[in-house]
């Protein structure tokens, strides 16, 4: 990817939370680039760091940060150097928006839906109240809701409608990048399908870049041109959608794909024995080695480097070390 086409560039991001047991290594040397109008899926289980990555980009990490390092560039400028004030004024909800996990249930119950959608516009002095309402209604229509929803309260909407409203909220300022953290996790499968189809349509129409955070590889594959698989705070595999789904290189990705019961094919999914590591004291060497069926001596001592066995397809695993 050429420099010009990069919208967001995360370089060597490290985040540690403080806890009573000691610092929790939530993210370790995470690097990632998102191109213009590109969607990247961030897939991992709970505790893998996928939400911390989103919150780092939004500068919304909780206060108990023990250590933070790394660079987050948006269109070339380093966001980590901006003060909270500057970031809020120029970036958050302006250039980057986020739909949080469970956001549809966090809407303010006593404020009309339309007001909540138009809220970020009210703070932008260039727009009159009337214009803000017009923009909000245009966004409601874009997500498949009628103008009349503007006057409704959240409890009057169904789950699917609320999720559409929350997406309208994230898009109302016309951001360049939207972070979606499990945007369909509370929805039934038929409504989830509607929302995913809506996101596909919006992405094309608005030329949006999306970071799609999910625990579900199948779901991520619907929207993401590229997929990053996270495990224990690291990106362990990165590649195009079809590379990751059809030729997964990391044993974790392979096992994750094989462990979900499916509606087609054989009836014998497996599971990954053991549990994800304690991030206060992560295992030495590869973080997956205690659960890995292919573990050998090097895995226990040396943290795998990011290896690139195929162009554009990288993996942190010593099994692919011979091509180094």
């Amino acid at each position, binding site marked *: 990817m050429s420099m010009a086409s990069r919208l967001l560039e995360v370089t060597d991001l490290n985040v540690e939370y403080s806890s009573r047991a000691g610092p929790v290594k939530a993210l370790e040397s995470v690097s990632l680039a998102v191109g213009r109008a590109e969607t990247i899926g961030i897939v991992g289980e709970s505790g893998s760091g996928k939400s911390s990555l989103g919150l780092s980009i939004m500068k919304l990490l909780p206060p108990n940060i023990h250590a933070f390092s790394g660079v987050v560039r948006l269109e070339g400028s380093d966001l980590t150097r901006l003060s909270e004030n500057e970031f809020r004024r120029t970036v958050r909800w302006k250039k980057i928006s986020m739909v949080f996990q469970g956001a549809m249930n966090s809407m303010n119950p006593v404020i009309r839906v339309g007001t909540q959608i138009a809220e970020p516009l009210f703070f932008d002095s260039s727009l009159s109240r009337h214009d803000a309402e017009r923009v909000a209604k245009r966004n409601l229509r874009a997500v498949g809701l009628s103008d009349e929803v503007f006057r409704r309260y959240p409890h009057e909407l169904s789950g699917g409608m609320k999720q559409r409203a929350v997406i309208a909220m994230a898009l109302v300022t016309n951001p360049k990048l939207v972070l979606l953290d499990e945007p369909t996790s509370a929805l039934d499968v038929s409504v989830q399908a509607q929302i995913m189809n809506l996101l596909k349509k919006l992405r094309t129409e608005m030329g949006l870049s999306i970071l799609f955070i999910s625990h579900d590889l*199948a779901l991520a594959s619907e929207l993401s041109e590229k997929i990053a698989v996270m495990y224990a705070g690291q990106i362990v595999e990165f590649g195009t959608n079809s590379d990751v789904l*059809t030729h997964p290189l990391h044993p974790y990705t392979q096992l994750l794909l094989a*462990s*979900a019961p499916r*509606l*087609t094919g054989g009836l014998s999914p497996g599971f990954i024995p053991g549990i994800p590591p304690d991030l206060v004291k992560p295992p030495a060497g590869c973080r997956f080695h205690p659960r890995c069926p292919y573990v050998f001596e090097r895995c226990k001592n040396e943290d795998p480097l990011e290896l690139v066995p195929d162009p554009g397809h990288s993996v942190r695993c010593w099994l692919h070390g011979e091509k180094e």
Partner: protein
Amino acid sequence: MLASWGERMTDVLELLDAKMSFRVGRGFFHGTTLTAVDEVSMSLKRGETLALIGESGSGKTTLGRLTLRLLEPTGGKIIFDGKDITHVSEGKLSWFRKAAQTIFQDPYSSLNPAMSVQNILEEPLEIHHLNERKVNEETIFNALKNCGLTPQENFLPKHPHLLSGGQRQRVAIARAIILRPKYIVADEPVSMIDASGRVEILDLLRSLQVSYGISFLYITHDIATARYSSDRIAVMYLGRIVEVAPAEELIRNPLHPYTVALIGAVPEPDPSNLQRERPSIPGEAPIPIELPPVCRFNLRCPKFMKGTCDKEDPALEEIAPNHFVACHLYS
């Protein structure tokens, strides 16, 4: 019809036109009646797992609660082990409370944080006056072993917050099996477990079923895990069972348009997903308040037939061997 689902004699549980209506006391629908489960008949054989799938609001959890007599039905009958328990008072249900257990969705809230694993497992034994100390120790040890929580002495003194989600759910399962029940309702038992560990928990339930001959009602919104872990699947929509069939038959040959749509809407990990829209059903299920006696799916159905589907309520009928469907397309 019920007899053809399986020999009555081997049924652990039988519902006959069970109905559960609630008066709506507050809000916009004040004074109306919400029927969460509407005249549902079903049976569960000994050692069988029946998956009950449906979207939120379909009534699957209410149906599960009815079968546990946590709710007293407003119509129909509940037969457990040949005995009518429809309106039996709580005081006379203690034998049933021992025989029917439940596993909840959220192992983070279903275990008392102030109790150790040992206390959690002792409690059901004490409630049912099975407090022979020596015997109990053995029972608890065995339950932990059967649920893969070994070495047992490491787990006994622990409190839930020291356990992972999967381990907590295993404790909840150990608590459910410790009284050697005949019937367990598992309401979304793996939906809060990480994907890589789900199959392990489902396998555990299966192995307990085989060793103890337990019948399971597996309530879930996840059709793929239902396929994996059950003998039969029943699909619920707006308080009704609209289709029941052996699991593989239902997945491969769904008949009800709602079942077809549900199965079609599940994403598979496939790179070509990127290039196509996912099949979806328009709209969402309405709230089951005073529904007219017509097909409940007619407003969203792609195969809607005017004059039939909006006029008559289809009955659940056997279309192929052991394959029941409630749809005018087949009657």
